[in-house]
């Protein structure tokens, strides 16, 4: 195993005793960040556009996520999604959105430095029970919506909302939307950007039925799915054999409506049983409206009576936001368990 370490691999011990190897450095190119005073901690993801590493800023001690992009396609130069995407991200400055801190270049590599928080909503949900998470739901949901409304007000689609892209800072009690892919603007032609929209369980049904234009209601649908997941503890439309939505989508559109109403009634009862207040069920139903044109907007959802006082109750003033079990999942653990 020692030998493995020599070739830039990090040996990660899993909880069940098995050992897995992570290529922590990916390539020597990532070593470059040392010159800018960053230390590579571990690789946390591999996207269509590049690799994402968790790093430490040695000057400030802050954690960052660095996305490394290799410009391979020389005949085209710097790809347009990168120019347009970074220009957009540079414009965004909001409490509920992870910041793009810096853009570094070296040779034909571009490094995007993002703000980073250690806990994501996915693991937050898994660590909580239905009862212990309940006091946090409103404030987390409203912060997600505030962030999303900000995106939409800047003509930007998130496009990949899911619990692992919602980061939580326990200290400042802030919820931040992250997207280490690149967000797409709907002001510019964006067909070519949407490579990676295959089979996410947070994808709205209309995008599966017809190849409709990606638009703001898709994001709201995803928030609805996240909302339900916070209440029940399980993904609303899990991937795999029991993919309710795929099942539904096979029927004609009007059939879907009937089926969905049945499904929805079951679900609503179930969520009410889990202690969600009736206004919450109402809001969820508006966010999961099958017709994207009738689906509530992020701003509309914020005005819903369910969230009327949510902004006053910042997480700080509610029950202290602590994980019930003390063992916070380490990132390497999560990566090795393939939960990323």
């Amino acid at each position, binding site marked *: 195993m020692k030998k493995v370490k020599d070739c830039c691999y990090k040996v990660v011990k899993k909880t069940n005793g098995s050992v897995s190897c992570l290529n922590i450095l990916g390539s020597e190119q990532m070593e470059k960040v040392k010159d800018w005073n960053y230390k590579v901690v571990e690789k946390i993801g591999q996207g269509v556009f590049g690799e994402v590493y968790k790093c430490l800023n040695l000057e400030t001690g802050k954690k960052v996520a660095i996305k490394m992009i290799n410009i391979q396609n020389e*005949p*085209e*130069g*710097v*790809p*347009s999604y990168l*120019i347009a995407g*970074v*220009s957009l991200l540079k414009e965004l400055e909001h409490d509920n959105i992870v910041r793009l801190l810096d853009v570094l270049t070296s040779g034909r590599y571009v490094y995007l430095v993002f703000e980073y928080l250690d806990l994501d909503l996915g693991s937050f949900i898994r660590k909580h029970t239905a009862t212990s998470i309940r006091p946090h739901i409103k404030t987390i949901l409203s912060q997600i919506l505030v962030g999303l409304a900000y995106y939409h007000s800047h003509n930007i689609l998130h496009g990949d909302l899911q619990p692992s892209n919602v980061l939580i800072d326990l200290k400042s009690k802030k919820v931040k939307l992250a997207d280490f892919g690149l967000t797409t603007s709907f002001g510019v032609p964006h067909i070519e950007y949407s490579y990676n929209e295959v089979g996410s369980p947070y994808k709205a049904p209309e995008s599966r039925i017809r190849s409709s234009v990606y638009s703001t209601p898709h994001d709201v649908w995803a928030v609805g799915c996240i909302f339900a997941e916070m209440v029940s503890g399980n993904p609303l439309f899990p991937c795999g054999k029991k993919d309710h939505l795929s099942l539904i989508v096979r029927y004609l559109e009007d059939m879907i409506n009937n089926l969905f109403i049945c499904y929805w009634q079951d679900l609503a009862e179930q969520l009410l049983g889990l202690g969600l207040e009736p206004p919450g069920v109402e809001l969820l139903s508006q966010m999961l409206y099958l017709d994207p044109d009738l689906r509530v907007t992020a701003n509309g959802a914020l005005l819903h009576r369910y969230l009327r006082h949510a902004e006053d109750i910042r997480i700080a003033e509610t029950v202290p936001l602590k994980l019930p079990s003390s063992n916070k999942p380490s990132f390497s653990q999560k990566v090795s368990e393939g939960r990323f």
Partner: protein
Amino acid sequence: DKEISFGFKRGETDKSVMLSDDIKCARLEAIAWILNTRAVFGFRPKTAYLSVTYLDRFLSTRFIDSDKLWAIKLLSVACVSVAAKMEEVKVPALSELQNIDGYNFGNSVILRMELMLLKTMDWRMGSITPFAFLHHFIRKFCKDSSPSNVLPR
């Protein structure tokens, strides 16, 4: 706010006076090349406008020796390429851009210039242009005709 933050460094007008005659000539030549290139590829007017903005923003922040005028040619290729990527649906390959008027550099050189340009502009490439307001004004002034008839986007 956005306009100011995107604008040129303060005192830009003084600086442009300070630009040497050589640079001024090269700049005019570069602008002529940009306009010609726009016509050849049928780009939108906004693409040419953005290219010239990038060119001037770059020249106002970085100094180019008067004996390195070829650098301005290279810069204008990078400006057009980046502007086209911001604005156009169909972007020509770098080699196609160079085929006009003996502006011949090589893809990897242009790639590096693009990165340098982006870095100099702090990756803020989405300047506000007068084109954003045109539709609004046309709607105000000519109530009967829809803007799309008067002006192609």
